[in-house]
Structure formats: C-alpha cells, structure tokens
C-alpha cells in the first residue's frame, strides 16, 4: 500500500527537523542536573533582587497579600477609632461654645462630668476674674475657655443695646452707691472693674419613668421655692412614655444656681446639662456712667432753674430738665434690667420619659449603644478603606495599564520580528 501524500509530506518534514549536537545535549543535560548554577553572574544588587522577587510573585499571592494588608489597615483604623484617647467631642454649633461631655446620671462629682458643673456662679465668676487677658470681648464672636475649664459666651451685649430698653422710673437713693460701685472702671470692656456682672443660663434635661413625671415636677417646684427662684412658665403632661413630660422656664438667683442645679440633678437622671455665662460688666458699667452723667446734668439744670429770672427762661430749663429726667429713667431701667440679668439666671428644665436620645449620652452602655458604636467603627473603617483605595486605586490602575501596555508593546515587537 502506497503512503498518502500527507504522510509523505509529514515524513519529509520530520526528516528536515533539526537535531541538537551530542556535545550540546550533554552540556545542557549537565546544566539541568546542577540546576543552572549562576557561575559568571555578578552579585545582584538590592534593586535587582527586589525586581526579581517582584517578578516571581504570582497574581494569587499578590491578591492575598493585598487583602491581608487591607484587612490589617482596617483593623488598625478600627482600633484607633475605638480608642477613648482619640475621641474628641467638640460642638461647633452655637457660636463656638465648648460643650461638655455626657453627664453621668446622679453623679455630680464623677470623673466623667465636666469640672464646671460643680462650681457655683460665684466660683465661676472668680475663676473668670482670674483669667486676666482671657476675658471675652464685647465684639468678638469667638469664645475661649480659661484655665479652670469655665464655659462662657463671648457675645456680650453692647452699651447701645442696653440703652434700648424702655420704661420710666424715678431715681432712687441707691443709685449713688451703684455708681460708686462701677466708678473706677472705664473703656468699652470695663477691664478695670472691681466687680463683674456675669449673666448665667442653663439648660437641663432630666429623664424618668412616665408615671414619675408628676412627682419629679413637684420636686422641681419645691427646689425652685427652696432657693428663692421664680417659675416663669411650666407645663406638665402625663400619659404614655412618648407623651409624659414637663417643661419649666425658671429664674434662679445666680448665687444659688449651682445648688439649684444640683438639686434638680437629684430629682431624676440627668440626660443633658449645658451652662453658659455671659459677661455683662461692660454694658452695666457704661449704663451706670451714663446714668451718673445724667444725674449730674439734672443737678446742674436744677441749679440753673433756681437762678432763672424770666418765665421764658424757666420754661426752657424745665423742658431740658424733663428731657434729661426721661433719659435718666431709661438708663435706670436699663441698669435695673442688667442687674436683674446678673442676679437671676435663666434655667430651661425639661423632664422627659421613655428612651433617652442617643445624642444625650446618658444612661448605661447597652446593646443598642454597642450596635451604634460598632456602626461608627465600621463607618470609620470604611472611610479609611475608601481613602486608601482612592490613593492606591489610581496608582494600581496606572501600574496595571503600564504593565499591560509594556506587555502588548513587547509582544508586538516580537511578532514584528517574526513577520
């Protein structure tokens, strides 16, 4: 049987197949047997060794190493986020007030509570007076905290606003003493005043059971009465956990504000408590000085009135006297208003029932808080991962594109060499 044409063609191709020489085959066998020793290769540098190591990496190992690195980064970020030493609780709202952290229920002197909560307004005032150059300015929106950790608002009212108060009143004999009190001071900030007038305000939220709202409200009234305070407005409602509650707008003598707040704190769990102070010395001093000047002008007009000779002169002086007395009455009203603001502190007190607002930070750490914290940690970790990907992603993409481009270019050049 004759072989086919294809068999003849393939046999001919087989006969054309180049064969290695026995010497080369033996030499290559020896090299393979010894594992291709690097006889004449120069000592590799660190960069070349690193490049050789990088080339030796398999894609699967790269993915595993990258994943492990990402998990480690997320773990480190989670630890950093969860670390108490890295927590910063700054409320940037409300004109720069530095807010205290959450108040521990029923523990006025606990370590977690801000220090100023244990201080009376008098102590706060003393601490403020010792702050020296750290005193607030009347035209500044920013606030600062002195070394004693006292909070205060820097937005003090100006003298112009004090003069806007309306009302009439007769001058009293006590005005001279008041004027003497502020006499040494001068300038818009009254920095040399011997006595400082500070206006205090406080907000407090108490939490209790719905059926105990009534008793708590009664204790609030008792405490207000005990410390000589005034209830401006009150509202007490009963019902379910979401409806039961009470709200109070109170005026408490500033000298007893600390004690009153402490008494309120003992009524129920404190869910939040914020205090602000506002130095109104400057407008008070200015108003007192203006009032003193007005009194002097009135005295002068009275002397002038006694020396008038004609009816026309007498009427003219009396008109000036009436105007000046009205001006003095306005100043007196303003000064009284400023003194009342310094003497009495405004307290907004609210009694809530039911679950505490998570933002209040009161109460123990429960499962809900754990989920909340876990969510925050995961969110922070995800943020770190996203930032990391935002940085590493483009770099990796560029590196991948360069690698693919180089590979394609090299392949094209090789194929071009063939063709």
């Amino acid at each position: 049987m004759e072989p086919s044409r294809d068999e003849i063609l393939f046999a001919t191709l087989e006969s054309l197949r180049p064969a290695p020489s026995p010497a080369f085959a033996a030499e290559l066998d020896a090299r393979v047997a010894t594992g291709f020793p690097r006889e004449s290769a120069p000592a590799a540098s660190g960069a070349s060794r690193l490049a050789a190591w990088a080339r030796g990496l398999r894609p699967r190992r790269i993915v595993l190493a990258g994943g492990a690195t990402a998990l480690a980064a997320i773990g480190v970020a989670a630890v950093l986020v969860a670390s108490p030493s890295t927590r910063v609780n700054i409320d940037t709202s409300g004109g720069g007030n530095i807010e205290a952290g959450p108040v521990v229920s029923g523990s006025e002197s606990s370590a977690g509570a801000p220090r100023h909560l244990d201080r009376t307004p008098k102590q706060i005032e003393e601490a403020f007076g010792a702050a020296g150059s750290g005193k607030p300015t009347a035209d500044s929106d920013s606030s600062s905290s002195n070394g004693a950790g006292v909070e205060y608002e820097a937005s003090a009212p100006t003298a112009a606003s004090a003069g806007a108060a309306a009302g009439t009143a007769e001058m009293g004999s006590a005005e001279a003493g008041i004027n003497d009190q502020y006499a040494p001071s001068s300038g818009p900030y009254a920095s040399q005043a011997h006595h400082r007038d500070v206006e205090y305000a406080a907000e407090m939220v108490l939490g209790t059971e719905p059926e105990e709202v009534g008793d708590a409200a009664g204790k609030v009234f008792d405490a207000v009465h005990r410390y000589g305070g005034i209830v401006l407005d009150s509202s007490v409602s009963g019902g379910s956990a979401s409806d039961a509650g009470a709200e109070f707008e109170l005026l408490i003598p500033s000298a007893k504000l600390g004690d009153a707040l402490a008494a309120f704190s003992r009524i129920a769990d404190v869910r939040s408590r914020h205090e602000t102070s506002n130095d109104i010395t400057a407008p008070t001093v200015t108003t007192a000085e203006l009032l003193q000047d007005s009194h002097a002008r009135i005295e002068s007009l009275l002397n002038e009135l006694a020396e008038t000779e004609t009816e026309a002169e007498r009427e003219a002086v009396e008109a000036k006297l009436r105007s000046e007395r009205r001006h003095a009455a306005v100043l007196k009203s303003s000064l009284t208003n400023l003194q009342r603001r310094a003497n009495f502190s405004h307290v907004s007190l609210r009694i809530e029932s039911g679950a505490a607002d998570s933002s209040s930070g009161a109460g123990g750490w429960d499962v809900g808080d754990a989920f909340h914290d876990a969510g925050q940690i995961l969110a922070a970790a995800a943020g770190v991962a996203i930032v990391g990907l935002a940085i590493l992603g483009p770099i990796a993409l560029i590196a991948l594109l360069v690698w693919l481009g180089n590979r394609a270019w090299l392949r094209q050049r090789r194929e071009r060499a063939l063709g």
Partner: protein
Amino acid sequence: MSEARPKLLVMGKLFARSSGVNQALVAAAEEAPAAAELAFEALYRSSRDDVYAYVASLLRDRVAAEEVTATAFERAYRKRSRFDRERGEPRAWLFGIARNAALDELRRRGRHSELAADPEDLAAATVEESAVASERRLAVTAALARLEPRERDLIALKFFAGLSNAEIATVVGVSESNAGTKLHRAVTKLREACDGAI
C-alpha cells in the same frame, strides 16, 4: 539523559504524546518541591530536542539555537514555581518561553530568519538516502521558504516541536479553533507549494 524521539508521522500520534507528558508533569508539580524538580526534569527530557528543533528552525543558526535553547530552559527553571496549570499545559508554557527567547534573539539581531532546514543537515543526509527523498526534501524546503513567516512558525510548532493544536494556541495567543484553522491553511499551502514533488 538523551531520550530517543519517537517517529511521528501523523498528527494524532503527536497529540497523544503531548497529552501523556502533560498529565504526569501537572500531577508532580502539585506535590512537594522535590517532585516539582522531578517534574521539570521530566519536562526537559521530553522537550529538549523539540525545543531545539523549533528554535533552530526559527533562527537557522546552530550556535544561536543552542544558546537560545539553553536560555529558554534556564528561564523555565527559574520560573518553574510561577507555572500555573490553569493558564496552559507545561509544554505550551515551555514553548512560549522558548518562542519569546527566539523572537528576542531575532529582534536583537535585527534580521529575519528563513524557516528551513540547516544546510549541514541536508549535506549529511544525502549520503544514504535515495534521490527521490533528497528531491522531496529540497521541494519541501523550498515550499517552506515560500510560506509566510507566521505560517512557518505554525508548521514548526506542529511538526518540529510536536505540539497539539491547544498547545499551539496557548503559545501563539489565539483560540484553539483559530490555531487549528490557521494550521490547516498553512499545511494546505505547503502541500500546494510541494505539488508535483510529492
């Protein structure tokens, strides 16, 4: 270490040889490092002459073919831990390295090589063979010279290296069906170019 290469006359026998070697190599490479060494040695023993034949057919220079063959095996030895069986069979991986090394050599030299038998082989073969066989060799050599370089590359991979269509596809970077189609066209052109002599 040299191993007698079986005579291959038809494509089916080529495929059968490659498949058996690949299965043994893959099984050994997945075991201990010592087994991987043995697997590489087995790959070398089964492919040394094939690699040389393929590289020599591309370069048509015995000295250069020896250098490139040694370089290809050394590269394969250095990269043996990076071999991924999911990306192809060991022989295809090895011939991919050898092809790149040969093309790099061609590129470095800046010239194209004719895919044909070495003239020394022709001279040595004419001693005992018949005039008809010699005429056929000359005709096939001339026919190979008329093929496109890529077609000669496919012929070399198939008949000198002994690769299957799937392995050729992996080496060249095309699909298996595309490799089969291109190879069929190349063989057809070669057959037509040899018309009258065979």
